[in-house]
C-alpha cells in the first residue's frame, strides 16, 4: 500500500481529473467536485490512445476517471467520491450520511447500481434476441427496486434525502442515457405507470445546476452510442 507521501511544495491543493468527454463514470467525479465547489484541472483522454499519465496513474485498470490530488492518484469512481467526501468534508452537500447504518444502506445502493443496474442495461443495449430480453427484464426488476427504495421516505427528493448524494450521482446516467437508449433501441425503459417516483427524480436531477451544466454534448453522444449499438449488432451478425 502507498504510504502517505508528503506533498511537494508546488503541488499544494492541486486537483486534476483524468476523464473522457463521454464517460458516465468520469461525470460522477465531475459532479462531486463541482457540487463541493472544488476547482480542478481536466485532463481529457482519448481511450484509443491512452496517455502515459493515465497508464502511470491507473496501471491496474487503465481506465477513467482518475483523480489526482497532491500528485497522488485515486481510481474507481465510487472510491473517488468517498475520497472527495472525506477530504472536503466541510463543503456541502454531504454525499454520504454520517450514521453508520444509513451509510451502509447508501453504499449498498451505490454498489447495486454498479454491480446490477449497469451490467443489465448494458446487456439490453449491446445484445439482441433472448440475451437482450434478459437484459431488459433484469433492468425492469432493478428499476422496480429503485422505485420502491425512492418511495420509502415521503419527503425524499433524492436518494440522498433533501440533497443529492452518492447514490444519485451513481445513478445519474439514467437521466440522459436512458432516453437515448430508448430511442436507439426503440423500447420503453422508464414509464409513468411503473416509475412515477424515478421520473420525478430524473426531472429534479436534470434541474440541478451542476448536472445541467455538465452534460456531454448531446449530438456527439447520440452519434457515439448509435455507433456502439451498430458495432455490437454487426459483431453478432458477423459471428453467426
Amino acid at each position, binding site marked *: 500500500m502507498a504510504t502517505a507521501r508528503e506533498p511537494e511544495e508546488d503541488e499544494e491543493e492541486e486537483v486534476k481529473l483524468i476523464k473522457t468527454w463521454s464517460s458516465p463514470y468520469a461525470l460522477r467525479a465531475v459532479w462531486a467536485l463541482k457540487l463541493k465547489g472544488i476547482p480542478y484541472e481536466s485532463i481529457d483522454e482519448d481511450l484509443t490512445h491512452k496517455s502515459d499519465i493515465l497508464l502511470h496513474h491507473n496501471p491496474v485498470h487503465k481506465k477513467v476517471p482518475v483523480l489526482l490530488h497532491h500528485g497522488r492518484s485515486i481510481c474507481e469512481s465510487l472510491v473517488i467520491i468517498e475520497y472527495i467526501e472525506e*477530504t472536503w468534508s466541510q463543503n456541502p452537500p454531504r454525499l454520504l450520511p454520517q450514521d453508520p447504518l444509513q451509510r451502509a444502506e447508501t453504499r449498498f445502493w451505490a454498489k447495486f447500481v454498479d454491480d446490477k443496474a449497469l451490467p443489465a442495461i448494458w446487456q439490453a443495449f449491446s445484445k439482441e434476441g433472448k440475451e437482450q430480453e434478459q437484459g431488459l427484464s433484469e433492468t425492469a426488476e432493478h428499476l422496480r427496486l429503485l422505485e420502491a427504495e425512492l418511495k420509502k421516505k415521503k419527503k425524499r427528493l433524492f436518494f440522498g434525502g433533501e440533497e443529492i448524494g452518492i447514490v444519485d450521482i451513481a445513478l445519474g446516467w439514467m437521466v440522459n442515457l436512458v432516453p437515448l437508449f430508448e430511442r436507439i433501441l426503440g423500447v420503453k425503459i422508464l414509464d409513468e405507470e411503473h416509475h412515477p417516483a424515478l421520473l420525478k427524480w430524473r426531472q429534479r436531477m436534470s434541474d440541478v445546476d451542476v448536472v445541467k451544466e455538465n452534460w456531454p454534448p448531446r449530438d456527439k453522444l447520440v452519434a457515439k452510442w448509435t455507433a456502439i449499438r451498430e458495432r455490437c449488432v454487426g459483431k453478432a451478425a458477423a459471428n453467426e
Partner: protein
Amino acid sequence: MADEVILLDKWVSPFGMRVRIALAEKGIKYEYRDEDLRNKGELLLKMNPVHKKIPVLIHNGKPVCESNIIVQYVDEVWHDKAPLLPSDPYLRAQARFWADFVDKKIYDTGRKLWTTKGDEQKSATEEFIGYLKTLEAELGDKPYYGGEKMNYVDVTMIPFYSWFHTYEASGNFSIESHCPKLMAWAKRCMQHESVSKTLPEPEKNYEFVLQMKKRLGIE
C-alpha cells in the same frame, strides 16, 4: 443495552469469512447462523430481499448486506478496537480500491477455474494468476496490506486462501510457484486466531465444491 449481533452466513463463503474475521478482530460477540442456501429461510429473505444472499449482519434487528459494506460498518461502529481502515483519506481510498479489486477479480475468475474446462479453464487460470501477481506486487515487502497490522484489504483477501487448494486442484497449477510472497503473506495472516479459527480446512472446501459440481452437473 447490550448489542444483539446475528450473522447469517455459510461456512464456505469467502464473503462471510471476511465478516467473521472482522468481528473476531474486534472481539464482538455474535450469534452465527449457517444458512441452507438451497432452501433459504424467512429471516434471510426478509433481511436481504434484494439479493437474498449471505452474509447478512443483523445488528439490533437492522440488516447490513454485502460483505465489504458490512466490514466497513463493523469498523465504523466498533471503531475503538483493531481499526481496519486507516484514518487518512488517501490511504482509505487505496484500501477501498484494493478491496474493490479483490471483489471484482478474484471470486469470479476463481469460480471459472472449477466450473470450466479446456481452453476456457486455461485462459481463466492465466487471468487468475495475473490478478494474484498484481496483488502480490501491491503487497511488496510489507508484512500485511495494512503495513505492520492486518487491515481491510487483508481481511477482504485472506478468505480466498482457504479456496487456493480448490483453485490449484481444478486448474492444475501451483499458486506458491507463481506467487511465493503472497503465500507467505497468507500464512502470516493464518497466525492470527481471527483468521485461523474462521477459515475452513482447504480439503473441506474442495469436497464441498466437488459435491456442488456433481449437483450442478459440471464435470
